[in-house]
């Protein structure tokens, strides 16, 4: 049980790091946006994992269940990030569309050179 949780935590951290390295190392704007989504998926998974530490039952009170409930606080906190992530992604994609129309490329270095006086 404890070992499985540690393994899962390692996988979740690997997902977050993959997304993070994608954001800072990839040059393409689309790749950056996709890596940001990967990173936010990892963060959401980490919050779910943290809330599962207290117990494994869904935090909805019921008579018949026995066992410990999962912690509802991290789940409620991260629900915000899911919705905000969706709207931020729509906004970022539109921004990338505008940039790609003004300079016919998605490479950040090209776009930056185009705007450097």
């Amino acid at each position, binding site marked *: 049980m404890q070992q499985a949780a*540690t393994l899962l*935590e*390692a996988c979740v*951290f*690997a997902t977050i*790091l993959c997304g*993070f*390295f994608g954001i*800072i*190392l990839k040059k393409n704007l689309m790749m950056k946006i996709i890596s940001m989504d990967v990173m936010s998926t990892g963060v959401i998974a980490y919050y779910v994992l943290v809330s599962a*530490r*207290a117990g494994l039952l*869904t*935090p*909805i*009170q*019921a008579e018949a269940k026995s066992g410990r*409930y999962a*912690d*509802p*606080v991290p*789940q*409620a*906190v991260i*629900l*915000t990030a*899911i*919705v*905000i992530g*969706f*709207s*931020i992604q*729509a*906004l970022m*994609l*539109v*921004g990338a*569309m*505008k940039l790609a*129309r003004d300079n016919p490329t998605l490479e950040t270095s090209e776009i930056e050179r185009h705007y450097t006086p």
Partner: protein
Amino acid sequence: MKWVYVVAGIALYIKMLVFPDLAMDAADLPAVESVVQDSGVPNAVSGLIFRNRLYDTIFEVVVFTIAIMGVRFLLSDEQPSRIVYQFTDHPSIVLARLGATIAALISIELAIRGHLSPGGGFAAGVAGGTAIGLVAITSSSEWMEAIYQRWHASVWEKVSVLIFIVLAVLTLIGMELPHGELGTLVSGGWMPLLNILVAVKVALGSWAAILLFIRYRGLL
């Protein structure tokens, strides 16, 4: 320079795995029971979102609205794409309509019973948006646009946000409806109403986003 970042990231990874977690002593508190007692609904996550963290949820809804408005603003001077390629074969249309019906029913279920069972306003809104998206990929965009205009969907979206803010402020200054019996459909004060409002808001907002992206970029 790139390798410095990679080495630092790997070092952070090993640190997070090897060193023990920060104090998790607060887990002994029976969070679910106390939240259920305070909010009067069995779903503790809904209780937290619409009662303990209501202040945060208001701004979440506001940020979502502003992001959709920003998409509309940024796209307003674009040239709409001339030809939108749709799915035209009969099997996909039937399957998409079937999926849309099921998603819409699930959305209503999640919205009205979000305080009793897993679900809630945000999940319900996303299910409704999925239903609308499934219809949108198989029918003509002018028709979808006409429906969006005829039912004043954007006005309803803003109105539901405003009603949500008013209800939330009423809750925050302490005016609460009676909790009712725990576990019934009409219970928990404002909570079912807030759930439905958020569901309407998220469904209409994602409809607006889908419609804009299809009109200006097509499906592919």
